[in-house]
Each structure stands twice: as C-alpha cells, then as structure tokens.
C-alpha cells in the first residue's frame, strides 16, 4: 500500500500532472465565473429556470432581460469556449515545465492551433467554430496545447531565431489544419456518428441495466471532460417521460408509472446532486473532513453553482477532472445511488419522478418536485447524500496523503 502511495506520489510529480495542475489553476477563476454566470442566466433569469419559476423573478426584477444577456455573454465567453483557454494554458505551461521558463507566445500558438481545428467555413464570410468542440472540448484543447508545447520545445534553438520559429509555427498550423480537414471529412462521411451515443431508451435488454450502464458511461466521459449520453438536467421530452407524465396526469398520481427506470427517474432524480459524480457530496465531505485550505476555499466557492447542478468549477478546482484518485468514486457513487433508488422504486416504496421540474432544480429536490411532493423521495435524497459523503471521505484522505508525499519528494 505504501509503495502504491509512493508510486502515485511520484506520478503526481510527473511533468504531465504538473502541466495539468497549473493549467487548472489558471482555468479555475474563469470556469467559476462562467458556471456562476450560466446558473444566473438559466436558473435565475430565464423563465423556465428553477428560481425564476418559483419566485417569479422575471416578473418583478427590473432589467432582467439585460442582465440575462450580460450573464449569457459572460457564460459564452468563459465556459462556452473553455477548450480555448485549455489550449492556451497547456501550451504555455508545457513549455514552462520543460524549459523552466515560458513566454506568452507559446500559449498564443496553442490557442491559435485550437482555433484552427475548431474553425468551420461558412458561406457569406461569417466566422463560425465547431460548437461542441468549443464548449465540451477541454480535453481536445489540452491535448492540442500539449502537442503544440512539445513541438515548440522539441527544437533546441533559442526563440530569437526567427527562421526556426517560423518553421515550427508552419508545422503546428499545418497539423492543425489537417486535423480540421480530417474532422470535417469524417463528419461528412458520417464516421463520427459512431461516437455519438444517443437515445435515453433501450432498444433491447432490461431498462434498469441500460440506465445504470449509460449513467456510468456519462460519469466516465464527464470525468474526461466530454458530455455523456445523459444530459445535465432532465428534459422531460423523451417518449418514456411523456408516457409517464400522461399516465400520471390521467391517474392523478405519480404511482405505477409505466416506465419506472429511466434517466429522469433514476439518474437525474437521485444520482446527479450538484452535477455529475454527486459533486454536492464531495463539497460537503471536503468542508467537513478536509483541513486543506486550498480545497476548502475551492469547495466554498463552488457551492453556488453546484447547488444548481453545475459541477464544472469543482471538477477543475479540486481537481477531479483527469484525476485517477477520484475516478472510482466519481463513477461508483452515482451508480450506488441509482441502484438504491431503483430498489425503492421496485419495492413500490417510492413513486417515480414524472412531473417536469424547471431547469436547474437543486438535485435533491428533483425527485421531490417530480413526484409532486413525495416526502419519502426527499428523505431518500438526503439519506443518499449522507452515504455519498461517507463514500467520498477515504478518497479525499487518499488525495491529501498523495499530495503530501508528493510534496515531500520535492
């Protein structure tokens, strides 16, 4: 065990981990700002948002439209193009970690390369970029930045040599453009559609196993910064949800819904408190059990977006993203939650969440409002959070120990 710890600790000192960590430190304020603005826009200021619906915000708040536009701007320019900042940071810090010093031009080149990959030619001279790559492309952005950084340092010459510099730039840009062309070729031929896992409905097999598998896949993909098959908040527009809602409205109660095990009734109602990986539980666990000032500060700042199921700040701040220590609980905790909830549903101790809830409804309230006020659902949600907190604690301790050993190794 101790050797394993040492191994992890030395891995923690590896250059890639250092680059990632420093990039995340650079990104955290940007992402925190972005996810807070996102929550303010969609939950507080948009008519279909949770706070806006419950407290009727757009009715009495002056300048709510202008505020919403403002928040939208902040969101789109931060979290909405996070891949860009990832490319900048990784490229900059790759050069820095390998060369001990870096210049902003390294970051700039990474950013340029990412833009070239994401660029999509449009008719009429309009500039457009690949939307999923911009919003969900942190992994791609960081990979691009890393490759750019490595190319920049692969040539030993000093930066003052302009000829050398131009060669490297030309190489990077040629690479970026060929990646762009390859991607548009793949998209045209439809090969990329293999990567798209869609449809909340199983075509075969038991719906419960399907939801559990898809939930685990969503968590896994979310851990590497890509959106999974399940969306961040329940949409209530899939056929199973509509069938459930119709049944409930006809029967006058949410009991005996035709589709008991769906992403809405299990994943969103019981396994997505504070966003993917039950981030709310991680925040509570850190605030209660951790003495590390850094993690505590990050957690405190992340409470606001996490209450409304935006987990990005926490993912980058701790960090959980790409962090092997947190991979296990990040995938396991939601699966445990879904399994327990499915048991309750199967035993008819709970009705399924069938009524639509507004966007950004705090996780534990989704099941409560989705069943039109079933108190058992609320209690189960609170009970599950308590279990999740306890499940996260050993991993927080482990992360602290690894960090401490890594610090001693220095």
């Amino acid at each position: 065990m101790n050797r394993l710890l040492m191994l992890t600790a030395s891995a923690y000192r590896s250059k890639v981990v250092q680059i990632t960590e420093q990039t995340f430190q650079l990104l955290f304020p940007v992402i925190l700002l972005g996810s807070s603005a996102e929550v303010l826009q969609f939950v507080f200021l948009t008519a279909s948002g949770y706070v806006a619906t419950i407290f009727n915000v757009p009715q009495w708040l002056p300048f709510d439209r202008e505020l919403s536009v403002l928040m939208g701007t902040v969101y789109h320019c931060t979290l909405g193009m996070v891949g860009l900042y990832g490319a900048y940071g990784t490229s900059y810090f790759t050069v820095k970690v390998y060369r001990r010093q870096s210049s902003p031009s390294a970051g700039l080149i990474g950013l340029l390369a990412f833009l070239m990959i994401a660029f999509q030619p449009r008719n009429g001279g309009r500039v457009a970029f690949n939307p999923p790559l911009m919003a969900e492309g942190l992994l791609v952005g960081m990979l691009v930045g890393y490759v750019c950084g490595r190319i920049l340092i692969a040539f030993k010459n000093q930066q003052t040599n302009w000829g050398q510099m131009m060669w490297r730039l030309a190489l990077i840009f040629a690479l970026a453009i060929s990646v762009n062309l390859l991607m548009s070729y793949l998209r045209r031929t439809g090969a990329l559609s293999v990567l798209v896992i869609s449809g909340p409905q199983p075509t075969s097999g038991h719906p419960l196993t399907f939801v559990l598998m898809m939930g685990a896949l969503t968590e896994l993909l979310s851990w590497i910064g890509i959106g999974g098959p399940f969306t961040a908040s329940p949409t209530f527009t899939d056929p199973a949800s509509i069938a459930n809602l119709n049944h409930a409205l006809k029967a006058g109660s949410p009991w005996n819904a035709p589709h008991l095990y769906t992403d809405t009734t299990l994943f969103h109602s019981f396994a997505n408190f504070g966003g993917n990986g039950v981030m709310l539980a991680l925040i509570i666990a850190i605030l209660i059990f951790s003495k590390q000032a850094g993690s505590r500060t990050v957690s405190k700042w992340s409470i606001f977006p996490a209450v409304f199921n935006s987990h990005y700040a926490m993912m980058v701040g701790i960090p959980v993203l790409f962090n092997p220590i947190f991979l296990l609980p990040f995938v396991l905790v939601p699966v445990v939650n879904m399994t327990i909830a499915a048991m309750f549903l199967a035993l008819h101790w709970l009705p399924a969440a069938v009524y639509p809830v507004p966007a950004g409804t705090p996780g534990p309230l989704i099941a409560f409002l989705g069943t039109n006020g079933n108190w058992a659902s609320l209690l189960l949600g609170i009970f599950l959070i308590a279990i999740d907190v306890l499940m996260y604690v050993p991993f927080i301790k482990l992360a602290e120990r690894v960090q401490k050993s890594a610090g001693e190794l220095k």
Partner: protein
Amino acid sequence: MTWQKKHWVVALISIVMVVAVIVVSLQWSRKNVSQLAQRHNSTLVPLIMIPGSSATENRFDSLVKTLNVNRRNPHSLLKIRVAKNDHLTFSGQIRPRDHAPIVVVGFENNQDGYSNIKNQARQFNIAFKALNERLSFSRFEVVGHSNGGLIFTVFLEKDYSQYANEVQVTKLMTIGSPFNFNERSINNKTQMLSDLIKNRRELPTNLNVYSVAGTKNYTSDGIVPLTSVMASRYVFQGQVKHFTTMTVSGSDAQHSDLPQNRQIVSLINNYMLTAKRRYRVRPNEPELH
C-alpha cells in the same frame, strides 16, 4: 463571536432557508401539476357518432365532409364496425395532433327494436373500451342519430359508470331519437322509455344534452313522432347539467335526411367540437453543464 458560535448561526440560517425553499417549491409544484392535469384533460376530445337502424358506419361520411369544408385542420374520421360476433373492424385513421377526431361506431346487426338496442349498447361498450385503450382520451362527446341516441343512452345508464372516474362524456346530441318509439302519446310509455326513466339516476350529472327533432309537419319528421323525440326530457331533464331541445324545419328536415341537414351540421359545429386546442408542456430547453 467564537468560531463555533459562527458555525451554528450559519447552520441555522441555512436550515431556515432550505425549509423555506422546500415549502415554496412544493406550493409551486402543486399548482403546476394541477394546471398540467387541466391541460392534459383538454387535449384529445373525440366526437363519437352512432348511426341509427338500417345504417352502417358509413352513414356520416357526407356529414363529416361538410363539417370539414374550408377547415385548415380537418377532423379525421375513424370508423369501427362491430360484427354480429362482437368482432371489431377499424378503418380510417386519426391524424397526429388532431384533437377532435370523429369516430363512427356502426353495427352489422342494425335492426330496430328494444332488444337489439340493448344488444347494440353492449356491443358499443366493447368498441368503446377498445377505442379508449387505443386513444387514451379523458373526455369525449357523442352524436347519436335516431336509434344511435337510444343506444348511447342505454350505454350511459348501464355500462358508463365503470369508466366515469377516468373518462368523462361532456356533451350528447341526439338527432331525431325516438325515445318512445312510434307512440304519439306520452301516456303510452314503451318498455324502453320506462326502463330509461327508471335508471335515469345513473346518468352523469355534468352532461350537456341537446335533443334535436326534425319536422316534416307539425307532429312528426315523417317517421318519428315529435312527442317521441321530446319524451327524452323525461329521461334527461333534471338529472343532467343542461338539457336543451331544438326543432329543425325546412328542407332536409325529414328523419333520414337529418344528418345532411345544413342547420344540424352547423349545430354540431357550434355546440359539439368546441374543445380547446391542446397546450404543449414546455420542454426544459436550456442545458446546464
């Protein structure tokens, strides 16, 4: 303030806020769900038509055609034919998002007489059950021509109560229905009329009934005496929510012409088929990360 005291205050304030949010959310949820239920219940409202004796499920084809003249979203027409052995044959189809489709239930055995009307009411129950399973509606309206009105009234008194909790009939229009068969005097009550009057307490109290009579002369539409049509008041009046009688005269007011009568077509347009358009549940569009 000490460290501990500060934490207690923070905890207390958070708990109060959480409870307040839960209470407000719950209030919203209750209101929202009852609104959703109301909207849901006004979505699909089929108009069921039952032809009279000696007529098939094609009896109302020209009536539906007239109803659909110049309509942007025409009513679809579904026909159910009930065979002598209770076997159901569906023909025609219902357009998606048609909120007021017309369903005609015709019977292979379409002979006159009280015993056959009772049998047809039983068969109508079978067709109605199948229809409700397919369309899953929670409100419906009925137009019955001649014996069709009698068949549905027998169904209402005998079999309807098993559906009453989930499916409601809101409007019934009987057209030239001989509630006292061919008797001209109300003093000579037929067996059927006495049975209908005896069981009238079974009729739903929130039903609107329109009884339309045709007239060829002052006393009859050529086949059914006016007094026999008007005998329906002894069945409905005072039991259902509203009971209205109307008499149509002029061209096409003869008993068999009534479904093509222009005035009756406009009566159906104005009094039936008035269900509100469906609201869509607003999807939860913005996606949070």
